[in-house]
């Protein structure tokens, strides 16, 4: 969707944290991205390289943990895994699902100097 803006968001966080935690170079960025977050990972990887050029995270390695989505099925009364917002419950076929996770978009860890 707007992977470029998201990378700029990552860069802002890196710059803020660099001041707070006293580092000057970021070598590795580890992200948690849920399957429902709307993030297109190849587009993100492309944008990441471009946005980080000439910054404290130039040439940083990007690692993305793709997280599955969980939903609570009201019919089955249990938690099931889904891949999209419009998915039916894989067990009973109902659409009465409450999505509980999968839209994460989080910077988890950094390797820094």
């Amino acid at each position, binding site marked *: *969707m707007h992977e470029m803006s998201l990378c700029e*968001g990552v860069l802002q966080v890196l710059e803020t944290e660099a001041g707070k935690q006293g580092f000057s170079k970021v070598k590795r960025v580890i992200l948690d991205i849920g399957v429902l977050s709307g993030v297109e990972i190849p587009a993100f990887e492309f944008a990441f390289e471009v946005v980080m050029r000439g910054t404290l995270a130039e040439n940083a390695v990007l690692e993305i943990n793709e997280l599955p989505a969980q939903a609570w099925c009201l019919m089955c009364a249990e938690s099931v895994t889904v891949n*999209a917002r419009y998915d039916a419950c894989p067990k009973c076929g109902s659409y009465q699902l409450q999505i509980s996770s999968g839209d994460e978009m989080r910077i988890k*860890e*950094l390797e820094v100097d």
Partner: protein
Amino acid sequence: MCTVCGCGSDEVSVEGHTHEHDHGHGHSHDHGPEHHHAHDHDHHSHGEGGDIHYGTGPARAHVPGLSQSRMVEIEQNILGKNDEYANANRRFFAERGVLVLNLVSSPGSGKTTLLTRTITDLRDDFDVAVIEGDQQTTNDAERIRETGVPALQINTGKGCHLDAHMVGHALEKLDPTPGGILFIENVGNLVCPAAFDLGEAHKVAILSVTEGEDKPLKYPDMFHAADLMLLNKIDLLPYLDFDVEQCIEYARRVNPRIQVLQVSATSGEGMDRWYQWIGMSRQMRLLEHPELLAGAGANA
């Protein structure tokens, strides 16, 4: 391998390489029971005139000359900055009792026509203001100003959505009246604006019947984020092959909580229910501000 510094516990000995990384945030990492950094290996020596050899371990962290690497766990949302601005906007709106609606749709859904009609019908009852988002031109803000209410255009330039920071700046200039209603007409785009909280009370998705009825499935994030869907241009239904029930069914699939109202901004059909929805949302907003409820629009 130690995931914190990247050293291999069984192949790299780390003498004088203390494992007290300065994480800077007081988190201790668990090496697991089989991984003891007893610093008594002998095949890798640091300092004291000896060679410093990093070559046997994985290269990721121990690149020669860059031995100060450390991992910092930060657990921050990528959109955290936007969310901070959005929360500041939300606080501003709450303090002033301003109802803010973020209107989202694809280009050409009739959003601006719907908005000008809404303003024309409501401006005598409420103080209305508008923030218009478009990539370029001030055409829409001009259309709104012709209705006699204050409007401010934000051109996003290359951007595909409004963000909370832009809206914050717009508020400095627009200064919405306490107890009033602020409409934010987002950039025509069913993808990106879904993720950017502006501090609004509700996102309202506008879908016209000249589009496909499966749009809620094609762009699920937006319909998931919206509290209300306005199905617009229903005056055209006799000329189209659009399955209203199916469309609503699809919208509820991606968002079981979504409310749906069928309207036509051109003929006016169904608009009274939309105005009721606005009036009730405003009353909810003003429960904390009874003095403002007594003002204009008290009987809405």
